[in-house]
């Protein structure tokens, strides 16, 4: 019996789908059987990020309405044997499925997979409500911006009403330079406002956008910091204790001396 994890944020464009694709891929690379479920019906993206758009035959709504078996709708990833995608329907909208139907589908998938990752649509209306009913756990993605944090806070409140397990936080697109000059909130500030456990911090990197456009999740890039951050998140999901990556690598001689003298 596997575990279902919903990835949500409230606000759009903070990196839910990117995080879903990367966390799912990282878990699969670690040898787990993973199914990614795109619950954003009508606005599907996850297939594009994984480069699987052209392989879709059946989708989530087909499976729910029993026009096909669930395994017929699953698409195996082109690089990872243990990673599958259940794509959203593009021609329907969010009202075409109910929470109970999705709960059934997720329960079926949990029988066959170690992890079922649900990519939640933005907003807090029907699509969101449906996406969270089948989830055992939740990951809230936010960027260090006030607007995203407000929405994340609202979503955490809603999740706490529904969910058994308290949600975990991923801070996405952190720019260390901006944090340094005061133009961006630092991670501690975000965590102190949202008051939930931090699962990971992903640095801002244009390489992530490039990777998304080519359908190659950034976790495949071994040397990329964002990819490493997602791999660390996947390890923490599996229960490993992994220290947070030090984003600021400028521990040069002067700061070392300062630290040694007790100034920094």
């Amino acid at each position, binding site marked *: 019996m596997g575990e279902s994890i919903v990835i949500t944020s409230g606000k759009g464009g903070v990196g839910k789908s990117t995080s879903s694709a990367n966390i799912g891929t990282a878990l699969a690379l670690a040898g787990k059987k993973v199914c990614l479920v795109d619950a954003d019906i009508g606005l599907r993206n996850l297939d594009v990020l994984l480069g699987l758009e052209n392989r879709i035959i059946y989708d989530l709504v087909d499976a729910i309405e029993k026009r096909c078996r669930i395994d017929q709708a699953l698409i195996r990833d082109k690089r990872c044997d243990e990673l599958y995608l259940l794509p959203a329907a593009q021609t329907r909208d969010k009202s075409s499925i109910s929470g109970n139907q999705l709960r059934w589908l997720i329960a079926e998938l949990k029988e066959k997979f170690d992890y079922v990752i649900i990519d939640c649509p933005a907003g807090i209306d029907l699509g969101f409500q449906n996406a969270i009913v089948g989830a055992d756990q939740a990951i809230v993605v936010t960027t260090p911006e006030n607007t995203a944090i*407000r929405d994340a806070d*609202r979503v955490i409140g809603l999740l*706490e009403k529904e969910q058994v397990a308290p949600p975990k936080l991923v801070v996405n697109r952190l720019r260390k330079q901006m944090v340094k000059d005061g133009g961006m909130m630092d991670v501690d500030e975000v965590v102190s*406002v949202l*008051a939930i456990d931090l699962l990971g911090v992903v640095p801002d990197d244009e390489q992530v956008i490039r990777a998304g456009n080519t359908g190659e999740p950034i976790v495949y890039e071994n040397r990329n910091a964002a990819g490493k951050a997602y791999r660390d998140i996947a390890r923490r999901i599996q229960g490993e204790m992994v220290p947070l990556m030090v984003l600021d690598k400028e521990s040069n001689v002067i700061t070392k001396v300062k630290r040694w003298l007790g100034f920094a």
Partner: protein
Amino acid sequence: MDMGKTLKPGVTIKGTKDGLFFFLDDSRPFSDVLADLKEKLENSHAAHIWDGPDLNVIIKLGKRQITKAEEIAVRELFSVRKNLIIQEFESDDIPYLLGGEQDLVIKSGTVRSGQVLIHKGNLLFLGDVNPGGTIQCTGSIYVLGALRGLAHAGCEGDTNAIIVASVLRPTQLRIADVISRPPDKWDESEIGMRFAYMIDNQIVVERIHHLGQLKPELEWKEGRRHF
């Protein structure tokens, strides 16, 4: 007052080395007692008795219990005599305030965006109130945590309600019917515990150590008698 009847006075005053005891008769309506007290304190003939060095005052209520509003009424009457300092109110063997102990309820958690915490009475909240979150009480609000959202104290009209927070960074403060918005930019020096109260239909924020001056009934001083 009827001249025919001989009533014992509504207020009897006794001087001791600890200060002045004001015995308020518990057998007649409190409004009569207040009228008597007002006369005694404001009577210009007796002014020479009152004007002098600071004196501690203990109010003895007998078997009577009073409301917070009645306590405030007594304190207002005493405010004309600056040298008379009320140390405490006492009833015989019972708490002097009606409703027994002060109704301070403790709750903890996080009030998140979109959530509203409503409470009747005074509330001690252990946790944060985030932007977009609301905490609303008929009495005062004490937040041990960061108040970043909206706090509405005295929401049924109690203008004496106050709002206290370890970190007072609200999006908006309301006391009774008055609404105030903090400055758009926070002064970084404004850290530490603060409280908000209402005066002249305006909400004012002060450092916590000013609270005793504004709410003498709350102030603790070393060496005072307590109950």
